[in-house]
């Protein structure tokens, strides 16, 4: 790299409208890609979380939907399997929830909270709820907690809102399970939880394990056992080890096995996204091509002069490739700043637009998620930036190549 390549390259960039326009073009493209992708990744993440719901990493259930009669034995058996960190029994059933003369379908999950918190995010959900309870007790005015006369239930915030449930409200469940006693059980709402996943918060109710068992007439049996794997362990490997140990009495699945169909359509969507984004980047790159091309046209005579002073073909080419590189790097940096700024304020911006125009940018019931999700995927953002620079360089190579081929005599012949 000779001094003149960078020196003249910089000089060509300085105070030129083209430079500013192409910098803005790159900045804008990078920022738009970043915003779109980060929101898409956010959706992806939340949609996955939504699809996952309260499923633990690995789920053990009875074969053919049977119950597990002795969950403590199962827990004992898998306890020492490599990769198994925690396990928790649960009972789950579809129920009709009745309160204040409203009936809604819901999913009742009976758990032992102290165990459940090790295999799911239940603790965080409860903390985000209106009452930060980590038990099923009712909180009194003076701050004491009291075991309610009926078993406690913690309901999702959206469900609570829809049915007008507040601490102390009595609710009844009608289970769809055939073995259930046909007597609606009365529970007392002690609090609500919030996962941020609209669908989940609308349909789920947590109750104590033994009360769920009693309501459903299950005795000591449970629906299944949730398993959390140790950090870094591969869920599918752990699944295989558990399968080998338990034999065929149980069905062992990861949560992704359970939700295979939904996840499959997500993957297809992602591929379509990649194609569209690639096309956008490809087209945006033409801005750079046009800019550098204009510069080359404008500097035809300069190219002849530089060659007459000893500039090489490669040297001339690198002046213009350097221009593209510079526009790429600076434009990407500006785009990164703009994108990050926009993403940090995306929800206030959406609210502002909604307030201004009355047009709801982000109707939450439609997306099952209560605010625009953003995932700052460092890897993905790095890729966007790298691609911006690469595209700028590649697109400047074409006009730069033509520039370097210019016959100096032709370039110099006329004033």
């Amino acid at each position, binding site marked *: 790299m*000779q*001094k003149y390549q960078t020196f*003249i390259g910089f000089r060509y960039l300085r105070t030129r409208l083209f430079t500013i326009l192409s910098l803005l073009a790159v900045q804008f493209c990078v920022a738009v890609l970043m915003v779109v992708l980060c929101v898409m990744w956010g959706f992806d993440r939340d949609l996955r979380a939504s699809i996952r719901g309260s499923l633990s990493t690995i789920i053990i259930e009875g074969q053919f939907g049977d119950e597990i009669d002795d969950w403590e034995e199962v827990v004992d058996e898998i306890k020492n399997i490599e990769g198994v960190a925690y396990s928790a029994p649960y009972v789950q059933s579809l129920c009709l929830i009745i309160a204040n003369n409203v009936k809604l379908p819901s999913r009742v999950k009976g758990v032992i909270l102290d165990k459940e918190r090790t295999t799911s995010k239940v603790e965080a959900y409860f903390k985000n709820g209106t009452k930060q309870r980590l038990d099923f007790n009712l909180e009194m005015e003076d701050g004491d907690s009291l075991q309610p006369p009926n078993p406690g239930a913690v309901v999702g915030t959206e469900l609570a809102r829809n049915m007008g449930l507040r601490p102390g409200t009595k609710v009844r469940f009608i289970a769809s399970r055939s073995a259930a006693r046909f007597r609606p059980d009365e529970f007392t709402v002690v609090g609500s939880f919030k996962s941020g996943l609209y669908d989940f918060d609308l349909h789920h109710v947590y109750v104590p394990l033994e009360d769920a068992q009693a309501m459903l007439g299950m005795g000591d049996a449970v629906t299944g056992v949730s398993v959390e794997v140790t950090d870094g362990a591969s869920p599918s490997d752990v699944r295989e080890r558990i399968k080998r140990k338990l034999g065929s009495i149980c069905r062992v699945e990861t949560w992704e096995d359970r939700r295979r169909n939904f996840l499959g359509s997500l993957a297809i969507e992602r591929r379509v996204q990649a194609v569209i984004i690639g096309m956008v980047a490809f087209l945006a790159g033409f801005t750079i091509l046009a800019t550098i091309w204009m510069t080359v046209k404008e500097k035809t*005579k*300069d190219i002849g*002069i530089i*060659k007459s002073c*000893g500039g090489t*073909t490669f040297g001339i080419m690198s002046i213009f490739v350097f221009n593209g590189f510079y526009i790429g790097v600076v434009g990407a940096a500006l785009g990164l700043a703009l994108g990050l700024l926009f993403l940090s304020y995306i929800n206030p911006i959406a609210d502002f637009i909604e307030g201004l125009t009355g047009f709801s940018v982000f109707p939450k019931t439609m997306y099952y998620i209560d605010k625009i999700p953003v995932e700052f995927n460092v890897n993905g953002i790095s890729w966007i930036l790298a691609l911006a620079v690469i595209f700028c360089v590649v697109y400047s190579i074409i006009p730069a190549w033509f520039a370097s081929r210019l016959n100096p005599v032709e370039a*110099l012949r006329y004033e």
Partner: protein
Amino acid sequence: MSDLLAAENLHKRYFDGSSELHVLRGVSMGVGAGEILVIMGPSGAGKSTLLHILGALDTADEGEVTYDGLGFSSLSGSMLAGLRNHHFGFVFQFFHLLPDLRAIENVMLPAMIDTGVFAWLGRKRAVLERAKELMELVGLGDRMRHKPGKLSGGERQRLAIARALMNRPRIVFCDEPTGNLDTATSNDIFELIHTLNQDEGLTFVIVTHNKQLAERADRVLHIIDGQIDGIQLEPAQDPQSDEEIH
């Protein structure tokens, strides 16, 4: 032959559609070290074409140019570029300065071409000194930071000469250096060329229509119809350059 630069049987043709224009028809000539050689001839005779070929800016269809015993045809593109950078300087009728660069940066251009980005850090001071010296020499000491657009024609040409001298070339090629200048300014330029020739032993190859300049040359070649027509020796000067005609 002790020629610094020699051309042997140069041919150059241009094709315009079906018609062929045979511009150079077997030009042979030599340039001795330290002489001022003037090339004259009617417009369209091929003077510029010849000068470009001699200066390795263009290539001949036939024939060979040798510089210091090196045949151009045996050199690669980047070696020829190196030759233009280190050994040749060019001065054109239309000045051909880079409009985006300041006057002094234009003068420094050949040195920047010669120096890597990191080596530049060490060399910059010396190059700047040399460029300043040259600008003083051509009488532009107070115009260093001007853009070429802000200079007069004569000043631009002197700037172009300063640039041509930056890397201490051995031959300076001038294509109608006074073609765009008035008589007084032209005389300044002649003076400068003469001084450089006398003081530094620089070799000049000058294409010009200017009779006065031709009179002060060591030798004058006439090109007519793509061939060297005759030779005129300035009787009072330089006895060693009694070279061939064609």
